[in-house]
């Protein structure tokens, strides 16, 4: 993908971020994700039903890269099962780390395939992923507890 198109996609997701609203998120799992090294700070809201990610929303303040990365992540993860989501995240992180990866429906997320060249921006891209992994973990732990109870 040429760099102009990448820039256009990033800026579009920044100016019109997907699901940057938190209306009707009662009962969602809420997690905060912030970069210690900079000022990005977002809250993510996750709804999982029957092992499927039904909805993700977010709000907060973050730079263009973080905001667009969050917007794109949300578009890609809704509808995926937890296993598919974790597989997607693992491959996406492998791409950022310059390791071998499989394009598991990256769609727009491919705009970040050269982020490794700008070390200081990697944490911007990964910000929502840190948060969503935390949220999924929380869901799984809660679920395990419920399974044990029943």
């Amino acid at each position, binding site marked *: 993908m040429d760099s102009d198109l990448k*820039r256009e996609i*990033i*800026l579009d997701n*920044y100016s019109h971020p997907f699901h940057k609203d938190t209306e009707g998120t009662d009962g969602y799992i809420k997690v905060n994700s912030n970069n210690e090294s*900079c*000022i*990005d700070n977002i809250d993510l809201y996750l709804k999982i039903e029957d092992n499927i990610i039904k909805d993700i929303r977010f709000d907060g*303040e*973050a*730079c*263009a*890269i973080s905001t667009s990365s969050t917007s794109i992540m949300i578009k890609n993860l809704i509808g995926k099962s937890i296993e598919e989501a974790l597989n997607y995240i693992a491959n996406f992180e492998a791409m950022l780390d310059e390791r071998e990866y499989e394009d598991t429906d990256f769609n727009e997320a491919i705009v970040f395939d050269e982020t490794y060249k700008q070390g*200081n*921006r990697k944490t*911007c891209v990964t910000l929502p992923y840190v948060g969503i992994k935390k949220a999924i973990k929380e869901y799984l732990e809660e679920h395990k507890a419920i399974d044990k109870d029943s």
Partner: protein
Amino acid sequence: MNREDFPMLDQDIIYFDNGATTFKPKCVIEAMNEYYTKYSANAHRGDYDISYKVDVAYENARKNVARFINADVEEIVFTSGATDSLNRIVNGFFANLLEAGDEVLITLSEHASNVLPWFNLAKKNGILVNYIELDTNLHVTINNVLKAISPRTKVISLAGITNVVGDERPIKEICKLAHERGIFVVVDGAQSVPHTKTDVKDLDCDFLAFSAHKMMGPTGVGVLYGKKELLLNMEVISLGGGMNESFDNIDEVYLKEVPQRFEAGTQNIAGVIGLSKAIDYIESVGIDNINLHETKLKKYFIEKIKDVKHVHVINSECDSGIIAFTVDDVFAQDVAYYLNKYHICVRAGNHCAKILKNAIGVKNTVRVSLYIYNTESEIDRLVSLLADKEKIIREMI
């Protein structure tokens, strides 16, 4: 001015993050190198020439620091930096003095190192941490200090100059009214000592903390100033070699005098020597000249940026070398990334004063903090890069 003295400026770089740390002049680097290459021994330990030379250099540095801030030499404790100094002041002195319900007054624009140690003490000892209200310019006024003081107030702990908006606090007046009421005053001098004349006797502050690296000295060394009678009552938190006279058993431990008893273990000798040289350097330029240069540059920026309607300076009225601004529709971090593409180093964020963001109205700002080596042409470059908003948005990612 004096740009040729700074090896870092040989690079194609415009450095506007002097509130974070400063570049070092050659003489500071050389003084430290000389210690490592010509007389690299421990202090207070050896009976041989080069160790004696270290002793002399180390204690001369203490004298130099004392003279620089008009303290007595026994009132200067070397630490690892302003943060370390403040933590020792809180945990070594005030933790033993304050009781549950006693009040410490700070403000919302303090650096984390003048907030978190107090928060921690509040959790442990049940002291109260309350805030002196800031005026609309985020300044501390005497009236607001008086308003905040209660019968429970025991300490006022403030930065001399804040790292966010660069306002200079009326420390001398605060010390006077505090002492009339039996209140201690702690000054975080990290942003003030490098830029303005500091005279602890004239200010009459009880404690002062500052770092070498923000005044062209090395990282990892700083100063804790305390009035002698207070240091005599400060608890020694760190014990070991170099700070004891002798010890035989648990009941017979004899410590050195103040201030050496607060310097356990091998100290940052090269750092202390570097700090002393940095003080010499500042004095060779003249601290008033440094201050004048910074404020002149700040005014120059404000004048130039006036016509750039999408840039808003939030601290125009402060007479220091710190400029905080926002750019319409562009997140501060993105402004910093954009400027970095042109090798301009600025800081984005809340500048370690995280509790301020609720008070300031704008959550995040871009901070330009100036020092002696910055120039008008560097400001021109910055203004021209900020002038075109479309370019910023196009190039920020």
